[in-house]
C-alpha cells in the first residue's frame, strides 16, 4: 500500500503548488487591478486614516485634513471651497480625486520619494505617518478677485494670472464652480448627491476652463501676427496695410469684414499700430497673406501653442492653430478664427512672454513641497521654455499694447498704472452671427515693469442674449480688477 500513499503525497504537493500558483496570480498579476478597483475601499480607507497634507497659498489654507470623531479619523476641508476649487480640485472616497488633489497626490498622501526620509523616521520614532504639504503659487487675493468678478456677474468663464518673470500662477479661476467639501464627506449619500448635482450641472462645473477647454482666441491672436511681422524684420509699427472695410478671401467668394463693417481709420491704408488698436480684420488678413503660413505657424509655436506636455502639474490641454489648408484659411486663422483654439492658460502665456522681454516661462502652480512640520523639501525653480520673440520686438509689442489699452473704453481703469492689453471678440458656434461671441482680454501691467499678466475669457459674452458683447466691454473690466488686486499685493 506504500505506492499509493507516495502518489497521494505527490498529489498533495501538486494541490498546494496549484494553490500557490493561483495565489500568485491573484496577489501579484491581478493585484494592481484589485487594489485600484473602484469598489475596493481599502486604499482610500487607509488614506482617510492618516493625515493628508494641506494645500496652501501664502499662508492661507486651501485644503486641509482635520481630526474628527466620525467613522474615519480625518476629514478633508476646503475653506472658501468654490473660489479655489479650480486650484485644489476635490478629494472623494468614492469618486477619487481631481485637480491638485490628484496631480500632487503622492506628496499629499506621503508616498512621494521626497518624503522618504520622513517616512523612515516616522517608522522608527513610531510617529503617525502623514502626508507632505503643497504650497501653491496662488495669490489668494488675486484668485478671490478673479473668482468674484466672474461669478458675481454670473459669467461662465476663466481667468489666469501669471507672474511674467517666473511663470508662477497667481490665479486660475473658472466659473461656475463647485464646493469640493461635500465630495469629501464621510457620508456616501452626501458624496453621491453632490456628484450627481455637479456632473449634471449645465454649464458644467467640474471642468477647469482655464486649462481643460480651448476657445477661439479672436483678435487676441493678432498679437501673434504682429510678433511674426516684427520678427521678420520687414515690418515696423508704421508699416502700411489695407484699410478696406471688407475684402474677399483669397481664391473664394467669401467676404471678410471689419468689426461692424467699419473702415480701418480714415485713409486708404492704416499703420500696423492702428490696425492692432482698431483690430482691423482686413489688414491682418492681408498681413498674414504676405507673411505666409510658415512664419505664422513658427511664431505660434514659439509662444507654446501646440506644446502637448505642459503640466502645472495638472495637464494643460494643448492649444492649436489648426491645419491651415489654404490661403483663405490662413487669412481666417490670422484673426483667431477658423481652427485656432487656445486655452486661457495658453493665452496668458503669450502675453506673459511679451511682458517678460520675449522669454516664455513654464507656468507652474506648486512653489514648494513641505514635510509634515512645514520644513521645505523641494522648491520649484522657474523654467524657461524658450524665446518667443526678441527683447526688441517684445518692447515694440508692449508699446503697441499700451497704445491699445489707452484707446479702450470700459470700466476699471487703475489710476497710476499703465496697462498693456489686447481685447478679443470671437465668433463661435454653428450659427456664429446669432450666437453671442466669446470675449477675451489679455494684458499685463505695469507696462514699464510687468508684475502680472492676465488672460480673461467670458464664454458667449457672459449673456446668451448679448450679441453685441465685446472684449472691451465685458472682459476688460475683469482683467483690470485682477491686475489691481495683483499690484496691491506686490506693492
Amino acid at each position, binding site marked *: 500500500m506504500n505506492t*499509493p500513499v507516495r502518489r497521494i503525497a505527490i498529489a*498533495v504537493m501538486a494541490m498546494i503548488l496549484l494553490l500557490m500558483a*493561483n495565489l500568485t496570480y*491573484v496577489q501579484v498579476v491581478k493585484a494592481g487591478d484589485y487594489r485600484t478597483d473602484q469598489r*475596493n475601499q481599502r486604499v482610500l480607507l487607509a488614506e482617510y486614516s492618516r493625515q493628508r497634507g494641506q494645500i496652501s497659498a501664502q499662508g492661507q489654507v486651501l485644503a486641509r485634513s482635520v481630526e474628527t470623531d466620525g467613522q474615519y479619523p480625518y476629514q478633508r476641508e476646503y475653506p472658501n471651497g468654490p473660489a479655489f476649487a479650480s486650484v485644489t480640485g476635490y478629494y472623494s472616497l468614492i469618486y477619487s480625486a481631481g485637480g491638485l488633489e490628484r496631480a500632487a497626490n503622492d506628496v499629499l498622501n506621503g508616498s512621494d520619494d521626497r518624503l522618504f526620509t520622513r517616512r523612515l523616521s516616522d517608522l522608527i520614532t513610531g510617529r503617525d505617518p502623514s502626508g507632505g504639504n503643497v504650497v501653491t503659487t496662488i495669490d489668494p487675493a488675486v484668485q478671490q478677485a478673479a473668482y468674484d468678478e466672474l461669478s458675481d456677474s454670473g459669467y461662465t468663464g476663466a481667468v489666469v494670472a501669471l507672474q511674467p518673470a517666473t511663470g508662477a500662477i497667481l490665479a486660475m479661476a473658472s466659473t461656475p464652480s463647485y464646493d469640493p467639501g461635500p465630495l469629501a464627506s464621510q457620508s456616501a449619500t452626501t458624496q453621491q448627491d453632490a456628484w450627481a448635482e455637479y456632473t449634471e450641472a449645465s454649464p458644467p462645473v467640474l471642468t477647469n476652463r482655464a486649462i481643460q477647454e480651448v476657445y477661439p482666441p479672436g483678435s487676441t491672436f493678432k498679437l501673434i501676427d504682429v510678433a511674426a511681422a516684427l520678427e521678420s524684420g520687414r515690418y515696423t509699427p508704421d508699416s502700411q496695410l489695407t484699410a478696406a472695410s471688407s475684402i474677399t478671401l483669397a481664391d473664394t467668394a467669401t467676404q471678410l469684414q471689419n468689426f461692424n463693417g467699419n473702415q480701418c481709420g480714415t485713409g486708404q491704408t492704416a499703420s500696423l499700430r492702428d490696425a492692432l488698436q482698431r483690430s482691423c480684420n482686413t489688414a491682418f488678413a492681408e498681413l498674414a497673406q504676405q507673411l505666409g503660413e510658415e512664419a505664422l505657424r513658427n511664431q505660434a509655436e514659439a509662444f507654446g501653442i501646440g506644446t502637448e506636455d505642459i503640466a502645472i502639474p495638472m495637464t494643460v490641454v494643448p492649444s492649436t492653430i489648426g491645419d491651415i489648408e489654404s490661403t483663405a484659411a490662413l487669412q481666417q486663422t490670422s484673426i483667431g478664427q477658423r481652427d485656432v483654439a487656445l486655452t486661457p492658460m495658453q493665452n496668458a502665456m503669450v502675453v506673459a512672454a511679451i511682458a517678460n522681454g520675449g522669454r516664455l516661462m513654464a507656468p507652474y502652480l506648486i512653489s514648494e513641497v513641505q514635510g509634515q512640520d512645514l520644513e521645505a523639501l523641494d522648491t520649484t525653480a522657474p523654467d524657461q521654455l524658450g524665446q518667443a520673440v526678441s527683447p526688441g520686438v517684445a518692447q515694440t509689442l508692449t508699446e503697441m499694447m499700451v497704445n491699445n489699452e489707452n484707446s479702450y473704453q470700459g470700466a476699471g481703469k487703475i489710476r497710476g498704472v499703465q496697462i498693456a492689453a489686447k481685447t478679443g471678440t470671437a465668433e463661435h458656434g454653428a450659427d456664429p452671427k446669432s450666437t453671442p461671441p466669446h470675449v477675451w482680454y489679455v494684458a499685463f501691467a505695469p507696462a514699464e515693469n510687468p508684475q502680472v499678466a492676465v488672460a480673461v475669457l467670458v464664454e458667449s459674452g457672459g449673456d446668451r442674449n448679448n450679441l453685441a458683447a465685446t472684449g472691451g466691454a465685458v472682459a476688460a473690466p475683469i482683467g483690470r480688477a485682477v491686475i489691481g488686486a495683483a499690484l496691491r499685493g506686490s506693492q
Partner: protein
Amino acid sequence: MAAPEAREQAGPPTGRTIELVLLAFAAVLVTGALVLVEANQEQTLTLDLLLIGVAYLALLVAAHIAVRWLAPYADPLILPAVALLNGLGLVMIYRLDLAKADRAVALGNDLPTLLWPRQVAWTGVGLVLFVAVLWIVRDHRKLAAYAYTAGFAGLVLLALPGVLPSSISEVNGAKIWLRLGIFSIQPGEFAKILLIIFFAAFLVQKRDLFSTAGRRFLGMELPRARDLAPLLVAWAFSVGVLVLERDLGTSLLFFGIILVLLYTATERVSWMLIGLAFFAAGGIVAYQLFGHVRTRVQIWLDPFADFDGAGFQIGQALFGLGTGGLGGTGLGAGRPELVPFAESDFMLSSLGEELGLIGLAAVMVIYLVLITRGLRSALAVRDSFGKLLATGLAFTLALQVFIVAGGASKLIPLTGLTLPFLSYGGSSLVANYALVALLLRISNAARAPLPRRPATPLPPIAEAGTELVERPS
C-alpha cells in the same frame, strides 16, 4: 560490548527535544505576531494580550507533556506545526475582534461579541480531547474492532442536524449545527473522523476481495456488488445527507477522502477514474437540480458580475488578497474586516491581506509539513489499518485546505469550510485536535522500537551432534 549496550538502553531518538524547541519557536513567532498587531492597531499592551499569551503557552506545554508521556516516539514536527497554525489563527481572530470593535465604536453600534476568548476556550477543549484520545487509544489497531460502531455513530451524527428542527440546527442557511444552549457544534466534523475509521477498517477486511473476486469490465476488475455494498451505501448516504443539508464543502470532502482510501487499499488507479467519472456526473446533476449550486458556479466564473449581491464575499476577498500583494500590509495594518466571515470561511484572505503572498506561502508550507508528516507515518507504520487510517486523516487535512483556500481565492467554486486550526470555529478545532492525536498515535507506533523478541533458547549441549574432524597429519 559496552557501547552497543548503552545505545540499546537509550533507544532510538524520540524527537521530543526537537518538538520542544520547535514549540518554543512557534510561541516566539505567535508572540511576535501579537505584538505587531498591537503596534499597528495602536493599542497599548493590555491584559488581554497577556491572557492570550499565557493561555496559549500553557496549552502548548500541556500538550507537549501529554505527548512525552503517552506517545514518546511520535513525530516531532506535527505538534509544533499545529501549534503555530492555531496560534496564528488566534492572533488573527483577536485582530479581527479589535477591528470590529473599532468599527462598532465609530458607527455608534453595540460592541460585537468577542470571538478570541471563545477560540481560546475551544483550544483548551480541543487539547483535552487530544490528551484523552492519546490516553484512551493506546494502540490504534484496537480501533478496527469498533469499525461498524464508529461508522454507525458517524452516520447518525452526520444525519442528526438534518432531522432535527431548524431552530436548533440551522445557522446562516446551513442545517449542519447542534445548538445546545451557549454551545454550538457541528457534529459533521466529528463524523468525519468516525467514518474514516470505519472505511479504513472495512477496506482492510475486504481488501483481498477487491483485487481477486469479480468480473472484468473494460480492462478493470470490478468487485462483487455484495462485497462493496456497505461501503457504497455509507458513501452515498453521507454525501446525500450533506447535499440535502446544503453543505457542499463537506460533501466534496467526504467524496474525496473515500475515493483516496479506496485507491490506497486496492492500489488500483481505475477506482480513481470511476470515482471522478461519478463526480463529474454528480456535479452535472447537482448543477441542473439545485439553484444554489448554479449560483456558486456563476460567482466562481465572474464574482464581479454581481458584486453587490452574491459575488460580494468572494469579491471582497479578492480585493483583500490583491491589496495585500506580495508582502502584505503588515499584521494589524490591513482591512481584513471588510470581508464577510473574515475569521472563518475567509481566514485565507485575512491572512493574505496582512501577510501577503509570502506569508501565505509560509502557511501553506506549514500545512504541507503537517500533511506529509502524517503520510510519512502511514508509510512507516507496519499494519494495513494504520496505513489506511493515517492516509485518510492526513489527506482529510490536505483536501480541506485545498477546498477552502481554493474557494477563497477563486481557484474552485466557493463552498463553506474552515481552514484546519486557523479559522474560527469550535467543532472544527476540537475535531482536528482529535484527528492529530490519532496521527500522533500512529506515528508513535511507526517510530517506536520493536519490542525485543525473547531470545530463542539454545539447545542444551548434551543434545548437540558430534562432528568428525579430520585427524591432523
